[in-house]
């Protein structure tokens, strides 16, 4: 596990990012709650995978990430494609930039910035979910009734408590 601290020279702000380096030399960024990011220096590639299911918001997030990397000039725009495995999206970076910069550093720096930009949004979302659950399980006084648990009536409106009897509806007896 590597802990990378990025310091802004102008503002003096620092950003910390946890990165794992595998034995094969790849870098894993797993801080984001929705996606896992891998930087594969051997293939000059960034691979983004969903942590769980590939849903519309997750795809949008992956797309946003690559748009961000392309806008920063880190990833080549024409190389962003769907990967060979479930829910993956990948893009390539230039192996040897003409200016002699280290491409892996540039990629990791941009990824750190993206995750940092995203952090308020997903922290807010997580907190909102927690708060909502808390309110539902332990509602405040004004949202609760004085009667405690109210048993369900045998007939509530037009819907019977145990559903409609299916037997005999069409004059069939099973």
């Amino acid at each position, binding site marked *: 596990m590597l802990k990378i601290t990025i310091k802004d020279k102008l503002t003096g702000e620092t950003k910390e990012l946890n990165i*794992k380096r595998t034995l094969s030399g790849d870098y894993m960024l*797993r801080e984001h709650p929705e996606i896992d990011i891998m930087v594969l220096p051997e293939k000059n590639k960034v691979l983004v995978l969903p942590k769980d299911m590939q849903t519309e918001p997750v795809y949008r997030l992956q797309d946003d990430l690559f748009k961000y990397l392309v806008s920063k000039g880190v990833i080549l725009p024409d190389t962003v494609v769907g990967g060979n495995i*479930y829910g993956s999206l990948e893009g390539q970076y230039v192996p040897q930039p003409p200016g002699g910069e280290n491409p892996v550093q540039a990629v990791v720096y941009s990824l750190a910035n993206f995750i940092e930009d995203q952090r308020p949004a997903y922290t807010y979302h997580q907190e909102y979910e927690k708060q909502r659950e808390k309110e539902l399980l332990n509602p405040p006084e004004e949202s609760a009734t004085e009667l405690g648990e109210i048993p369900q009536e045998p007939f509530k409106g037009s819907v019977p408590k145990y559903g409609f009897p299916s037997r005999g509806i069409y004059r069939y007896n099973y």
Partner: protein
Amino acid sequence: MKHNKKRNSAFLYEALTREATRATLHKEADKVRFITQLVKENFRSDTEMGKELKLYRELEQDTVDMDIADKFLIEVKNRHDKLDKKKLFVEQSNVISMINKKLGVSVYNNFIPNYKHIATISQIFGDSTSVKEKILLESSIIDFIKKKDVIIEEQSLKPIDNIVYNMFAKKFNEKYSSLISEQKQMLTNYVGSFADEGLQFKAYLNEEIGRMKKEIQTIKTFDVITSDTFLTEKSEKLLEYLNGFSKVREIKEDTLQKLMKIQQFIHEVKN
């Protein structure tokens, strides 16, 4: 040197207690009850087996002073000589018979960590061991009693016996020697995938499937394939399967086997 482990009271006791532990873990209440009863009945302090077990326990200690270790061993041997051997034989036969009939011979295969030590003690107690061997065994037991701490330290530095390691390596190589390098690499990645929730394995698969697709595209142009409609169709199907792999959410063992077969196919056609 021959050693009949079934006639070793300490071994029978250890094997039964381990079997009881195993049965407890598997929630086999009847079996546990039966073993507990068997041990209680046959290893009581007034039975010959119980007395013999106590003598084995004496020689497993490491609290004996260096000066009195010899005398200690002689005293233990004297007490063993006083045991009623016929009664001991009958009791052991009874336990062996109950194990064979009710529990099965697999009980004897239970791993006993200090088996080597209790086998040595058994040979010291036995009459069939030659004088020379007996003296050598006795000296090793005395060393054990005196220097148990040192032995443990030495063992901790050498965790696996060379023979065990060589056997393991030999069996592993025998089993997997037929695999090609790509298959070995896939297996290695799969085995290691549990550490990081499969992230690195997924990254590896992403690249490997890309490689396989390219290889099959190339293979499709080979004369052997183009001249045979059956092989062309099958190659198309393989390519279809690999293209559809991005829809496979969970990678199970059968998926892995299929991928390894495709690797084998590519390897065979290319060579």
